[in-house]
């Protein structure tokens, strides 16, 4: 085992290596064809939604099953503003985020005053009602009912510095969507990182598993929790806005808008690693590619042997088994597992900063991934 002092040159070398790897991967993606980029874009959507869920569920322990509704709010905000009011898509992201923030705060307000299960149930009800609400005939003038909106997209792709100009057609759209997703994910990552590393964020984490302590700390904390919930809802709405542009179609039947979307985000977050910054991102990709391929994999080989009798695709069953196994062997998911292993190879010794409360050894992105 190698010991590395925090912020020593060796530590910075590890961080630099991790950063370089990350940048290399990001630069490599646009060289794929549009189908490949499209898959990465889909995975990024789930990753971003899982990140937002992680902020409330992983870090502050508030159970939300309503994130599919916030996702839907983002998607519908973008679709409505672009198609009905002919906005440029970029600005719609802000509207979706603000609406989701307000609704998230309102939803969380009464439920946060008391035990977490009520928040779970209220958000579950919201998630359940949202698709019915947007499909409601009285709102058809706004949401276009069951048929929803299609071909939500930029009329002309903006020309971005550094990464543009983008080629015409599907390839260009995929590339642009990728860079847009990376930008939104990066900003969201920084926001989440800022929240959980802040003083308030750390106190929220500290009281996560101790509701008595949370109650003793008083109203202020409840307000903060409510605000954090709003931020999380806003980030999830960004993922929804991205999804509207990615697929171009927004209907009440869109998979991530249904209740099951919340469960998908949850599964992605847990597979990747709850309460870790990189976990949901890793989990989003894990989930997406597993989900995509499990159906094929289970038609041959050992999975066919085990699940061959199944009348429907065994993907969901496999995910639920995976979740339970993870809870027993690696409650902090893939990233938690990697962190544990990497500590056996390289240990970061935190530097003794006077007055610092943060004793957790930060792990370089490279080791986290």
């Amino acid at each position, binding site marked *: 085992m190698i010991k590395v002092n925090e912020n020593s040159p060796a530590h910075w070398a590890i961080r630099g290596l991790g950063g370089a790897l990350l940048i290399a991967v990001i630069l490599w993606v646009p060289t794929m064809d549009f189908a490949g980029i499209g898959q990465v874009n889909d995975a990024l959507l789930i990753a971003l939604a899982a990140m937002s869920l992680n902020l409330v569920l992983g870090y502050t322990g508030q*159970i939300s099953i309503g994130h599919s509704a916030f996702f839907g709010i983002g998607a519908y905000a973008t679709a409505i503003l672009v198609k009905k009011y002919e906005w440029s898509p970029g600005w719609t992201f802000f509207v979706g985020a603000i609406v989701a923030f307000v609704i998230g705060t309102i939803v969380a307000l009464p439920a946060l005053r008391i*035990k977490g299960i009520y928040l*779970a*149930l*209220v958000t579950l009800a919201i998630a359940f009602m949202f698709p019915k609400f947007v499909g409601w005939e009285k709102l058809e003038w706004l949401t276009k009912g069951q048929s929803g909106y299609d071909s939500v997209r930029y009329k002309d792709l903006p020309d971005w510095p550094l990464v543009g100009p983008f080629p015409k057609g599907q390839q260009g759209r995929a590339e642009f969507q990728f860079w847009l997703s990376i930008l939104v994910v990066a900003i969201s990552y920084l926001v989440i990182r800022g929240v959980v590393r802040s003083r308030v964020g750390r106190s929220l984490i500290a009281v996560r598993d101790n509701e008595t302590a949370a109650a003793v700390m008083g109203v202020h904390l409840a307000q903060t929790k409510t605000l954090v919930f709003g931020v999380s809802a806003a980030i999830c709405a960004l993922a929804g806005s991205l999804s509207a542009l990615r697929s171009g179609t927004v209907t009440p039947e869109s998979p991530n808008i249904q*209740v099951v979307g919340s469960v998908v985000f949850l599964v992605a977050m847990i597979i990747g690693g709850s309460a870790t910054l990189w976990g949901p991102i890793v989990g989003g990709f894990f989930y997406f590619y597993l989900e995509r391929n499990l159906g094929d994999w289970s038609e041959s080989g050992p999975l066919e042997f085990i699940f061959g009798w199944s009348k429907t695709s065994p993907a*969901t*069953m496999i995910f639920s*088994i995976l979740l*339970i196994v993870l809870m027993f062997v690696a409650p902090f998911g893939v990233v938690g597992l990697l962190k544990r292993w990497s500590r056996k190879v390289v240990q970061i010794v935190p530097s003794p900063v006077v007055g610092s409360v943060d004793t957790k050894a930060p792990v370089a992105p490279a080791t986290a991934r």
Partner: protein
Amino acid sequence: MERLLQIIFNGLSQGSVYSLIALGLVVVYRGTGHLNFAQGEMALTGAYLTWQFDQWGIPLLIAALLAMVCGFALGAATEFFLVRPLGKKSPFAVFVATIALFLGLNSLDGAIWGGEAKPYPNFFPNDDDDFIRILGAEWRYERLGVFVVMLVLTGLFFLLFKKTKLGLAMRAVASNSESAKLVGIPTNLVLMTSWGLAAAVGALGGSLIASVNTNVNQLTMIVVFIAASAAATLGGFDSPGGAVLSGLFIGVLETGAADYFPDWIGQDLKILPAFVVIMAVLLFRPAGLWGSSRVERV
């Protein structure tokens, strides 16, 4: 008047099923402090099992009883293999496990019985003239039966709680599990029994709603679970009586809302009034209508 009575009859029958599922949620929550998200899917599995036993030629009532036995085993196994070991790690792990069980049972049912809806047999006579007329409103035997079954089962549950040693032990464990151990109550066994009973009642509830719907499919229980959890919230999570009454109330409320405002609420959004009621309750009486605030606050 006639219309109102009709709504009340239909609502009570619908609410009866919510009450049964909510009762299961409350029994489990009181004992272990966990919300069983898989409660609805356990009930779904029970409904499918009843259907399967019926297909094998077992008389329907016995089929439902068998399904309840299987449900009991499923619930007890869940407590033993998942909730007990994971509960020692963290409440979060148990939450994830119940969500995983929700997904797993739902997809397992789909895997075994296929995605398409199965026509479901009737528990009660269901011909055109099988109803009683009260003040002009018709209460079909099929729906009346569900209500009666719920009343009987709830009555049995209350006898169990109040009059038996097992009930005393269940209440003692829910109240103070440390002291329960100190007076010699085998708390683990009691918790396992609680989960088993909850799942068994759920299995019956699932079979009844499938019978009323005349079919069962993978999505049958999701909306029922949401309504039932709303009932448990309204009643207060530590009050079985409150859960049952709230279940009935929500049944009547949503039937009434769908009937009186067919344009505005209709079948799709009929859960909306219940949701509004819950938000109001949470704002003004956070422990629920019948819950004790000592247990719920903090």
